[in-house]
């Protein structure tokens, strides 16, 4: 049981990293970190980006649930 959850965890983690890397970066790098200029991005996000958001959230939910699941199993079982 724990092994199955761990495998789910690995798959969802890798998927999560890939999905997040697929996003367009909005960080702006270091220049806007710690007190850069005031800038507002007026451009909205595209449909593809929105679907990607939804997929990411879904994967993240699976990820969190499986983490908590393994934690509980370790505590109760072992």
């Amino acid at each position, binding site marked *: 049981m724990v092994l199955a959850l761990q495998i789910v965890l690995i798959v969802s983690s890798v998927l999560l990293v890939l999905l997040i890397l697929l996003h367009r*970066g909005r960080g702006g790098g270091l220049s806007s970190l*710690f007190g850069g200029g005031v800038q507002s991005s007026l451009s909205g996000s595209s449909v593809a980006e929105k679907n990607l958001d939804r997929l990411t959230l879904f994967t993240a939910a699976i990820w969190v649930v499986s983490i908590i699941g393994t934690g509980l199993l370790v505590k109760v079982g072992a």
Partner: protein
Amino acid sequence: MLSAFRAALTTPDLRKKILFTLGVVAVYRLGANIPSPGVSYPNVQECLRQVEGSENAGIYSLINLFSGGALLQLSILALGIMPYITASIIIQLLTVVIPRFEALKKEGQSGQNKLTQYTRYLTIALAILQATGIVSLANSGALLGNCPGIIPDDSVFNLAVIVIVMTAGTAIVMWLGEQVTEKGVGNGMSLLIFASIAHRIPAEGMNILNNAGPLVFAGVCVFGLAIIVSVVFVEQGQRRIPVQYAKRMVGRRMYGGTSTYLPLKVNQAGVIPVIFGSSLLYLPDLVARLVGNDGGWFQQFVQTYLVDQSNWLHILLYVALIIFFTYFYVGITFNPEERADEMKKFGGFIPGIRPGRPTAEYLNFVLSRITLPGSLYLGIIAVLPNFFLGVTGSGQNQNFPFGGTAVLIMVGVGLDTVKQIESQLMQRNYEGFLR
């Protein structure tokens, strides 16, 4: 001030953004407290209690500061924002070295996007490295000062799961930060750092109150407030170089003829030099630990002079590094020749100085002189907590909330965020927070 606050909350658009930001910060703090799978939570807590008393946590104090205590708990978001910061620093430095990166930087928005994308790839790579390092340290018991039993089942598969989960956690932190930048208020990454630092303040305050009594506590509070005020004062300080624009006719309309100013901040570099400096200073210690505990001359030298934060050599070296990096970073970000060329192109000039090369030389002269007090100020604020070792009574003085890196970051991020909210408010009415 209060009415402006109400206005910010009654504007539906802005209220949504502020609530979104608060929600993301809440999710981040929640994640920072969930232990990784396979890590024994009771054992970690037990070890943490032992470490708090001793002086051993010094080496990771900066990373732990940025992750808000999540690192030493080995939570799923243990690495926090640190890999992203390191990646941005590396990419920023590489723009000086690699011609292709420099070309991308000059290309404008699309080039900048590409650089951001590189930063993100590098973040994941660094996250894998750091997660592996931390997990192996924790497994051998060296992370929390020779405290075994943190990871009960230390098979390779189990350790690999922890590393992968931590890497994914870093990706999530990066994504949360980007979401805040896009849909919320302020810069997401710096707000997350802000949250991690700020949540320690009550605990540290209690620590001082319990250890040193109410009188010292009150003194520290007053002193902290004075430091915050002075930091705000210097952060807002700028030299305004007057710039006159020539009148010109385009069609039937008249443009220009205005006189504005070019603001040069006293502290142009922000807190970045402090972060560079402290990262470099803890590198030798890291190397010494990786080499092994044989107690050679190198290790002894590092232990006595570099790790001990109240040692004069440590303080001196730290200040020198900060001053150097301030000049270095200002040199990277502000290019006087480019600025002079831009001014010339739009028909502007500084009164009394000819456009072109003389203007660039003048800007360079003013900038290098104004940066000196800026860098000295950064250095002094950063080493200030080192003199308070006796008051806090613990080795983690970089985490001391009323001085050093913590105050610099908090004030910088706070000012920036308030300015952004204000500019949003300005779109509706002219009353703001800052008069």
